[in-house]
């Protein structure tokens, strides 16, 4: 009874907070200087062609206005990235768990689509992309101010703020899809044993305190952004989220797996994936959605997007073949799960590099990811003994780190010439080691920040509400114990 009473109070408090935030919106708008007074269309004319959005800013003399082609592609990309979380990731992950937990995993993906979107709309976007402070975003876009249309008294009509050639809305929603999928990736590490409530609280806090700063540092001119004055070691290139999405989530996933502990019966019970059919279909959906993830990160429907699209596909293909070949050679049979995992590893690895490398290096990167991630999942995990249930660390952490470092090796002026004024940039084409060092520094900063922040968050949540379900609940399965439903009823 007490639990239900507390839950009721908690729900009321949440609703009251949301209503309060909505009511506060006009007040917050007044607190932000120049929020409503200026025609915002001219304020953020930053073309995003030269790298990832917000990474390299080249001032334009004239406002370029809305480009319907760019906008159409970016809206399509946004939908593609959302498609990656559910059904893509939901199916990929849910096939890998036992059938008593299939709904639990799907629910985590679906629920996070809702929960993280709300966080993004309220404070997530502004913490990522607000202001020009190199360490933290300001309140420029709090509650969607300066994103939503504002009335222009001079023109006598509402004006929609622009982000280069696309509305700020489009940029915001595209980036929001990344904010949704990143904590969902972590769910693979603690699958089959974490409380749903703990997962939800962790995701909100992790998104706010880990993702938002990292995103700001890398993509909004912060301390990890390439070429910025405040950048550490010259900053790093991260086209579509190798550092922000995959290393941060992969490393945090490893911390979660160790902190939450192994599943009951890990190592001796039968924990085979209950449906590799789901997993294969999910992997294929991720492959498709990743075109939006990477090619959309060009910010426009231009040549850079085409390059990102092509190298993304090449890397995934090489990853799928490489992992399957490893199994074929070392174990005698190429497994379907290996092929699917290799494709995802290839996609992860090319993510930071998609706007900087040519197609042939992309094949090398994908194949490297297939081999290295295979070792991480099949050999390293066994020898170290942690229970990363669905290999969130083995694929995203390891693949993301590899991709970030190889970006420094293979980045080419043929793709991103305007970054360096035509000078060689990557190690491979004679640009020296400076970029590789910048990439490694960014990787180390991301790892250190993710580990420290995740440990603190997990400890806090463990003390307050507890991280793990009871043994009885774990044995019954999270579908029934956490959601009161069954995934399969064949009667």
């Amino acid at each position, binding site marked *: 009874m007490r639990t239900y009473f507390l839950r009721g109070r908690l729900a009321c408090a949440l609703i009251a907070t949301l209503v309060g935030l909505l009511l506060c919106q006009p007040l917050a708008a007044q607190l932000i200087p120049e929020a409503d007074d200026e025609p915002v269309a001219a304020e953020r004319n930053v073309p995003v062609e030269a790298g990832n959005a917000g990474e390299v800013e080249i001032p334009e003399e004239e406002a370029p206005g809305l480009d319907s082609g760019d906008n159409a592609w970016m809206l399509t990309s946004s939908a593609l990235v959302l498609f990656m979380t559910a059904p893509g990731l939901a199916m990929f992950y849910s096939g890998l768990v036992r059938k008593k937990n299939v709904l639990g995993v799907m629910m985590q993906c679906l629920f996070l689509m809702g929960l993280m979107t709300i966080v993004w709309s309220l404070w997530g976007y502004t913490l990522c992309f607000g202001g020009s402070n190199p360490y933290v975003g300001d309140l420029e876009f709090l509650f969607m101010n300066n994103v939503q249309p504002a009335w222009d008294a001079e023109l006598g009509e509402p004006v929609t703020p622009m982000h280069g050639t696309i509305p700020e809305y489009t940029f915001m929603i595209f980036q929001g899809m990344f904010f949704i999928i990143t904590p969902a990736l972590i769910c693979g590490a603690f699958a089959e044993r974490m409380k749903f409530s703990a997962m939800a609280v962790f995701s909100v806090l992790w998104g706010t305190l880990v993702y938002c700063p990292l995103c700001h540092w890398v993509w909004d001119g912060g301390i990890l952004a390439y070429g910025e004055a405040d950048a550490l070691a010259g900053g790093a290139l991260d086209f579509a989220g190798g550092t922000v999405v995959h290393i941060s989530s992969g490393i945090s996933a490893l911390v979660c797996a160790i902190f939450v502990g192994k599943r009951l019966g890990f190592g001796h019970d039968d924990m*085979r994936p209950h449906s590799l059919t789901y997993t294969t279909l999910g992997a294929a959906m991720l492959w498709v959605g990743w075109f939006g993830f990477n090619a959309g990160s060009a910010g426009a429907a231009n040549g850079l997007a085409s390059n990102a699209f092509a190298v993304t596909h090449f890397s995934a293909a090489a990853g799928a073949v490489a992992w399957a070949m490893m199994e074929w050679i070392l174990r005698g049979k190429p497994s379907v799960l290996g092929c699917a995992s290799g494709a995802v590893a290839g996609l992860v690895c090319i993510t930071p590099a998609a706007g900087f490398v040519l197609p042939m290096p992309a094949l090398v990167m994908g194949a490297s990811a297939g081999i290295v991630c295979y070792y991480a999942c099949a050999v390293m995990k066994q020898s170290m003994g942690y229970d990363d249930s669905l290999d969130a660390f083995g694929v995203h952490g390891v693949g993301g780190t590899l991709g970030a470092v190889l970006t420094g090796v293979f980045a080419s002026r043929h793709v991103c010439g305007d970054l360096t004024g035509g000078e060689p940039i990557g190690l491979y084409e004679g640009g020296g080691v400076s970029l590789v060092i910048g990439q490694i520094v960014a990787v180390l900063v991301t790892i250190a920040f993710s580990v420290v922040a995740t440990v603190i968050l997990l400890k806090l949540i463990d003390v307050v509400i507890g991280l793990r379900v009871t043994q009885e609940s774990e044995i019954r399965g999270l579908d029934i114990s956490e959601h009161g439903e069954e995934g399969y009823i064949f009667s």
Partner: protein
Amino acid sequence: MKKVEAVIRHFKLDDVKNALSEQGVFGMTVIEVSGYGRQKGHTETYRGTEYAVDFVPKKKIEIVCSDGNLQKVIDTILRTAQTGQIGDGKIFVTNLEDSIRIRTGETGEDAI
């Protein structure tokens, strides 16, 4: 009367059925089963983690025949279900006390 139970490989079922029909033996019950003998199951590998699967799926056929037809049935199954590889299955023969055709009430060999 005898009851012949034979555990065979899935893909041999059609061969066995057709051969028995040619021999004039009609009537068969087929059941999906799983188990292990000397084959001792198999291992499956998922991202490097190996799981031992003890029970191998097989088909079990049950045939009721007269004492005179028994050897013919056994020989036919032996001939058609054999691959020579481990895991071909087994044949079990038991005495049958009676059989009754429900439609007519006939009993014994008349009901087969």
